[in-house]
């Protein structure tokens, strides 16, 4: 059996350090498997989140050799094992213990975004008609598993800690899914501009790179949203119109 050394960060909000664990592993194992092996054999109280072990629930987010990734989808044989593999908690959120971080901020942010508000049903039986081609865009965004890796990597949150002003890529994706939903009637552009500070995003595309669902966060969600905001707020004609007509009536 091959072996590897994991350098796992252990500690809590008052501080911590890396600890090295030597472990062997079977063919095909992922980082989460080895973390579990360490937990079962060497450190029973090691804190780690996981559920599905198949990249579907977004629980096992961490930073592996410095890159935000899902531990359950990172195979050991894709990592160099001649030196220790570092595994540490996401940096953009406060640590609870070991690899577990406090991601509750994300849940609070979501509640502040206006919920889905459908138009009146199209058919007398209370149902709607939508073409597959028209929902595909939204279906891409709805693949999101809320792993928050994109939030973790975004410099606005990670380095500049703008959690109070900026909702982050995950919630641009969420907003885009609502804004582009064929049935939705609510308007979130003002919120995106003000409460969401979409303007802080300078399109570095780091979020897109780490997204395990391969959602084109920047190209398909953020840029179109930015364009809508620009159309709404910086179009001189619209500005003029808005002086006389309440906003809601324009769209």
């Amino acid at each position: 059996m091959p072996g590897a050394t994991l350098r796992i960060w252990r500690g809590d909000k008052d501080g911590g350090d890396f600890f090295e664990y030597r472990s062997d592993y079977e063919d095909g194992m992922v980082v989460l498997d080895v973390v579990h092996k360490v937990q079962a054999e060497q450190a029973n109280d090691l804190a780690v989140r996981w559920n599905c072990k198949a990249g579907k629930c977004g629980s096992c987010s961490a930073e592996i050799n410095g890159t935000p990734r899902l531990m359950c989808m990172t195979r050991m044989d894709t990592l160099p094992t001649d030196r220790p593999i570092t595994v540490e908690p996401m940096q953009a959120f406060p640590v609870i213990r070991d690899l577990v971080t406090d991601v509750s901020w994300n849940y609070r942010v979501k509640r502040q975004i206006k919920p889905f508000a459908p138009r009146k049903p199209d058919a007398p039986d209370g149902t709607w008609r939508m073409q597959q081609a028209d929902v595909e865009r939204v279906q891409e965004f709805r693949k999101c598993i809320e792993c928050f890796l994109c939030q973790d990597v975004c410099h606005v949150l990670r380095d500049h800690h703008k959690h109070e002003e900026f909702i982050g890529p995950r919630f641009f994706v969420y907003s885009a899914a609502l804004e582009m939903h064929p049935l939705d009637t609510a308007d979130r552009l003002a919120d995106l501009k003000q409460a969401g500070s979409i303007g802080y995003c300078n399109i570095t595309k780091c979020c897109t790179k780490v997204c395990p669902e391969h959602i084109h966060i920047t190209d398909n969600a953020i840029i179109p949203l930015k364009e809508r905001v620009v159309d709404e707020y910086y179009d001189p004609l619209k500005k003029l119109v808005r002086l006389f007509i309440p906003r809601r009536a324009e769209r």
Partner: protein
Amino acid sequence: MPIDFKTHEHDVLIVGAGGAGLRAAIESSAAGARTAVLSKSLLGKAHTVMAEGGMAAAMGNVDDRDNWRVHFADTMRGGQYLNNWRMAELHAKEAPERARELEAWGAVFDRTRDGRILQRNFGGHRYPRLAHVGDRTGLEMIRTLQDHGIHQGIDFFMEYTIITLLKDGDRIAGALAYDREWGHFHAFIAKAVVLATGGIGRAFKITSNSWEYTGDGHALAYEAGADLLDMEFVQFHPTGMVWPPSVRGILVTEGVRGEGGRLVNNAGRRFMFDDIPELYRNQVARDADEGWRYVLGDKEANRPPELLTRDHVARCINREVKAGRGSPHGGVFLDIGWIKGNKTLEGRTIDAAYIQKKLPSMYHQFKQLAGVDITAEPMEVGPTTHYVMGGVKVDGDTQMSRVPGLFAAGECAAGLHGANRLGGNSLSDLLVFGKRAGEFAAKYARETKTPAPARDQIDSAINAALEPFGRSAATEGPYQVQYDLQDRMQALVGIVRVESEMAQALDEISRLKERARRCRVEGHRQYNAGWHAAVDLASLLTVSEAVTRAAIERRESRGAQFRDDYPDKSAEFGKFNIVLRKGVDGAMQVIREPLRELPPELKAVVEENK
């Protein structure tokens, strides 16, 4: 020694934030009850998120011959007529409305050409019936309920685990929890409690289920005096991954077979054609060509044998492997790549991109975890513990157990599925009965006064939970006990069962109970995985015992239970369900409970669909 705890008060307490729990909470809150939802994991991470294939609802969007009568008959046939027929009836009638409601809350299902919700074929369903979103239907469902639910005034407590139910006399009075973050205790006083805790798959070694599935709801209800029903029926899904070892058991959706995937042994033989059960003879394709036409949507064609019920397919695979006709890693081959080059009804030539679009997460899963490109190479698959038909016995209309104020819905409740669940009938189950549980729990709460649980229940539960920390002399941690239990259950109470092995399992379970009582936990209470595992062990052991006792009692093979010593179905055993109840002496009682007879109008529905 009394330890500090915090007290919370609600009308309705919902344990679990999967599809059933969230749907119950939405309903309960809408009815004006102060509602709290607790879950072991974060919101949106419950098992429901992993469901792939779809949710069954006879909307008739793809085949207008479908309606509730056919769905009802399919469900009863699949369950080998041990189902609670009232639940099967309500489920078939109400599922379409529950599916449409999800759309009104923002779900985006795949569409038919005329813009309605698309439905796909699945095992045991006569017509294309599963509303779906590619192969990530569960994600769509849980996210829709979550995103709707957070705006309904519900209190959410994430990463809280219930360890005991509280009572006031005979009635329910709330529940005691610890939070993972700090390890603090919380007493939730509530007039009604809805259990929506999911399944028990962690009692077995090879499973598609996560760490959460330790049968907590089953065990909590049992300890509080409710009955457990049909526990012998554990569904082994025919297609789990078998390689690499670390992903053994992870699910390969039935949707692969629904899209035309075929099962072959190492001689290249499509072995499913070799064994067609009597009950389904009229519904299976005569040859490969007819099966493929069915997949494409030809209404004259019958289904390929790969789409027979799960119990049957799992046993056929097991037989091939045992007979030495398996794949290199002890499974069989599942091939979807062969459909390339064929034409769809619309005349489109099927290519690799088509398969990727239909089964994106399977593509991803195999590519990343096994290094297999499913559009070009066959997958290796074998049976995996997947679902428990058994659970808390409830009233079909209200979902209340025999303990006043204690409700159950979703996988942890029993009745709908009988001896075998049809794929897709769980997601619909969650919505139909989640809603009903929420509605009737709120009603019950409205009609009762706030209970007052005796304090000593709380103190003794807290002390018991903390005991493992004090056992410094013990040498063993909880994980070893858990592994040994999983290993024993898999070997002795698995897909093929015999009395002698199950008797041995009972012995081993009682020894493991001893070991669990002595195992040790290190560190402190804050987010301590070892401690959580130690606490969960009690539930795992209780449900393992229940499964084993019920399986011994049912001396026949039916649905998910296959007995090597009683390989045939017995008319006698088709007349009752098996119920497990905690006796006054604390021992587990096994009771045979006669089935209620089908009313004539439902009998007619069964007949007309034979």
